[in-house]
């Protein structure tokens, strides 16, 4: 068990190391000069250009040898210092991200967990009903193939613009100040719903299809055949199949994390929802590379942590991994 987690953790550690290194390398080795473009945007008068550039170069640490820059980069990172945002100068990147993180998490966590749960349930039901299966299958594949931003646009157009059931943009109405009143929470929820629904619906299709395919496979497995031969009721066989089919779906959850996070980013953009996605858009528009890189590191770290949590859950629910680890040949 310790070996299993040790192996997993070292992979994640290595991944994080690679991500940080890539993050450090890209601005230094890519064509183009980020400071140049930053200076170009910020300066008003020609005579301030040179002092400005010097200031930035010192500020971002470009005036020391490369290896030292790299070490400094790590040093700053470990102290939680991701640099300063250009867009919201002089706010530190960490603070910008921390401000938007709750919105993204507030969308992602419920969307991922609920779509996983509901999709699996629905897929299991679809697998046992031929009619439902035949109708759902094309719809399901279409759903997984739908670009998140497009569904967001369509939902926003229909439910917010056409029928005015939900607000079109933002996390809460501009007329309100954040507080814990019912009015505000209700307003928050109304703004939250459409982006959440977008993420939920697309992800739901994927889980339902995955479960449907897995459970059909499980229902034909030898243990299902044996239970049938023993006259076990269908209910019991289905329950076993469902449970066993859930296991690969947990692994699937880890694999899909990246895609759902990407979906959240673009959905936020459509709804001007002030999470990481919206921050990303602003960073791209304002050529705020430090913010962009900060967001990148945060996403990578978040995905890695989530991956590890999923590993832990998997080991808890699948006896095979738990027992297979005790020194047996893999």
């Amino acid at each position, binding site marked *: 068990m310790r*070996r299993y987690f040790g192996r997993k953790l070292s992979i994640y550690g290595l991944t994080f190391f690679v991500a940080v290194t890539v993050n450090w390398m890209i601005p230094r080795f890519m064509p183009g000069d980020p400071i140049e473009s930053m200076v170009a945007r910020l300066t008003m008068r020609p005579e301030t250009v040179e002092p400005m550039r010097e200031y930035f170069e010192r500020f971002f640490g470009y005036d020391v040898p490369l290896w030292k820059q790299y070490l400094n980069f790590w040093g700053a990172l470990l102290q939680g210092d991701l640099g300063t945002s250009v867009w919201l100068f002089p706010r530190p990147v960490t603070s910008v991200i921390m401000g938007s993180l709750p919105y993204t998490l507030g969308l992602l966590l419920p969307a991922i967990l609920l779509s996983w749960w509901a999709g699996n349930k629905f897929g299991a039901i679809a697998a046992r009903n031929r009619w439902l299966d035949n109708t759902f299958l094309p719809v399901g594949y279409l759903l997984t193939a739908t670009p998140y931003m497009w569904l967001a646009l369509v939902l926003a157009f229909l439910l917010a613009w056409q029928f005015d059931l939900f607000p079109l943009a933002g996390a809460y109405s501009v007329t309100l100040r954040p507080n814990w009143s019912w009015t505000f929470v209700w307003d928050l929820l109304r703004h939250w719903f459409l982006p959440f629904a977008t993420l939920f619906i697309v992800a739901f299709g994927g889980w339902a299809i995955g479960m449907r395919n897995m459970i059909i496979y499980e229902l034909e497995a030898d243990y299902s055949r044996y239970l049938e031969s023993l006259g076990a009721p269908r209910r019991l066989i289905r329950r076993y199949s469902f449970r066993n089919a859930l296991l690969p779906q947990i692994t699937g959850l880890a694999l899909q994390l990246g895609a759902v996070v990407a979906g959240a980013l673009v959905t936020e953009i459509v709804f001007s929802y002030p999470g990481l996605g919206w921050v990303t858009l602003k960073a791209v528009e304002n050529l705020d590379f430090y913010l962009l890189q900060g967001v990148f590191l945060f996403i990578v770290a978040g995905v890695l942590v989530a991956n590890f949590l999923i590993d832990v859950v998997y080991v808890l629910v699948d006896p095979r991994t738990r027992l297979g680890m005790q020194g047996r*040949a*893999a």
Partner: protein
Amino acid sequence: MLEFDSVTKEFRVGAFGRLTITAVDDVSFRIAPGEIVSLIGESGSGKSTIGRMILRLTPATKGTIRFDGVDVSTLGRKELKEYYRHVQGVFQDPFSSFNPVFKADRVFEMLRSQFYPDRSGSEWEDRVAKAVEDVGLNPVQVLNRYPHQLSGGQLQRMLLARALLLDLRLLVADEVISMLDASTRVGVLNLLAELRERGLSILFITHDLALGYYISDRTIILRRGSIVEMGDTRRVFQDPRHPYTQTLLASVPQMEWRWRDRPVSAAVPVDGDGTGDAEPVTVLEEVEPGHWVAVS
């Protein structure tokens, strides 16, 4: 001709090979020209690993395997090809030995392109037809067909024909008939015996004692990677000295006597020979000329 000298094979398993499993443990034997040696063992005895090491499909961890006095592990690419000209293998599952997406006679063509690239079309075709007839097949019925259109027996014979197209001297036959039906397996078995009469040596690997007895001159009984008994086939079967050989013989279903008349006292084994405590270290002792038994 073939010397298998103190060979050990360890497999590394687990992430980055943390664990080792000893599949073959210090095994030595020889195969003389024109001799059929049967290698008998249950699952996990290492019998197939020995065959694969002789065919150099897997390297030995320790010890040497010599063919005509030459250590086979030292062979370079060219010499290895020459080695394969004399030493070939046929395996257990005929349907797995043929690539299902191609026609079955592709095995002959592959052989030609590697070993006889200068042979012309019709001359080669005649040779193939002759080899196919030699193994009791009708070329019209087996050539130009897909593997799934042929029976297991036909496929195994095709593989023998393939080996015979070379200057074959030693054949490693690994469970070659265990997946065939009763009515066809004897035919393939008899064919092997006929090949021997033409001077071929055969290492006949099997788990079935009756098959070993039927065909071989000498028998090696293998257990958990070690030889427990080795000698002239008749002597080993008629006068088994090692308790393991005796248990095996008592367990073979026969149609001459019933189990119930010869009870085995030992505790009921759950899994053949795969489990159990570590074996004590043993050495082979010659109990009569050419008959060796492991003693602790």
